[in-house]
């Protein structure tokens, strides 16, 4: 017999071992997320994919689907919770969209649009973070890092290089580079590594590609991130 859960009342089949996020994605149901990526083992840190499973809030990207689960996803309460979470990401970093070449192609920005974010709500920290432009082909701007660890996972699991890791706690948490200098230039990282283009924000960028697509034609200029399930 086919196994299924319900998401917002819709019957969604799943295969044994799948997470709620995997089942939802296969059924073309959007659950907001930033640290989840279908190619990688889930990390469960951004909490944007929080759903209500049989009355309890859980991360859809890590929670296994089980027969008969009643999952709530697109509720006013959950989306307000997600809005506050993404506003916290904005005030903890320094996300100046008008000056960022990722703008228009940024999943943090697009998810904030999706959640209807019009203001920051919280006071901004304006914590200065180190920018590493030492690499000839790559740029690391920690002001835009949201600690999703996708670069950590891509470098470790696909590139086999283990170049990135998260270090420190609280507002001092930051991305560290595994190299003699602590900079990217002697890390062995290359621009065609999987880790080089996995960043959902503008924290890790390939140089000399910025602003190549005009405003109005960028990824999220004309459609919402919820319509883009295949690329997530």
């Amino acid at each position: 017999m086919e196994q299924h859960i319900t998401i917002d009342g819709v019957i969604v089949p799943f295969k044994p071992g799948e997470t709620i996020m995997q089942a939802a994605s296969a059924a073309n149901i959007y659950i907001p997320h930033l640290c989840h990526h279908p190619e990688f083992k889930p990390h469960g840190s951004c909490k944007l994919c929080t759903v209500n499973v049989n009355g309890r809030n859980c991360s859809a990207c890590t929670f296994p689907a089980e027969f008969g689960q009643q999952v709530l996803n697109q509720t006013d309460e959950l989306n307000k919770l997600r809005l506050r979470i993404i506003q916290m990401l904005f005030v903890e970093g320094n996300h100046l969209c008008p000056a960022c070449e990722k703008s228009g192609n940024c999943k943090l920005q697009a998810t904030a649009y999706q959640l209807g974010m019009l203001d920051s709500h919280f006071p901004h920290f304006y914590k200065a973070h180190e920018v590493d432009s030492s690499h000839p082909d790559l740029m690391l701007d920690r002001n835009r890092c949201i600690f999703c660890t996708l670069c950590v996972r891509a470098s470790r699991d696909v590139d086999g290089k283990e170049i990135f890791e998260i270090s420190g706690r609280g507002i001092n948490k930051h991305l560290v580079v595994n190299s003699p200098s602590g900079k990217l230039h002697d890390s062995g990282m290359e621009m065609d590594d999987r880790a080089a283009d996995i960043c959902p924000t503008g924290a890790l960028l390939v140089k000399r590609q910025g602003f190549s697509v005009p405003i109005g034609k960028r990824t999220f200029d004309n459609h919402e991130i919820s319509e883009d399930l295949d690329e997530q």
Partner: protein
Amino acid sequence: MSSKIRVATTSLAGCFGCHMSFLDIDERFADLVELVEFNRSPITDIKECAESDIGLVEGGVCNAENVHVLREFRNKCKILVAVGACAINGGLPAMRNHLPLQACLDAVYLDGTGVTNPQIPNDPELPLLLEQVHPIHEIVNIDYSLPGCPPSADVFWKFLTDLIAGREPTLPAELVHYD
């Protein structure tokens, strides 16, 4: 007293780009002034804000005068609106928040390229700079925010026509952008 809805506008630590974008409603301005009258605004050059229905504030807060004007707007305007990225999150002026204020002044007025007779301006009429640039919601309560750098003319038009018609203002997805 006129029965028109009174609108006040100001630019604090902004570039006037939001005001320019507002003016981009073009011929619709003729329709707008049938319904509203402008109080304190760069458009009228009135210097003191009288009691108003809607206050549009562009820019963040970077100096003591910005704080004064922002509080005046909050006191006089029934509905106060943060207009544009700088009012909402400090915007590009807030990029100086990572640097000591003295280092910024030195870089611009003493060590800058092409500076002659280097001196940091200290006329008593100049408002004192704050140590950091702040979004306006950190100083006063804000009723609505219009994101964008700048918000497009259509954002202004949609927001104001909603409000004037007595509707709760909403922005469709295509009008919401942060750049």
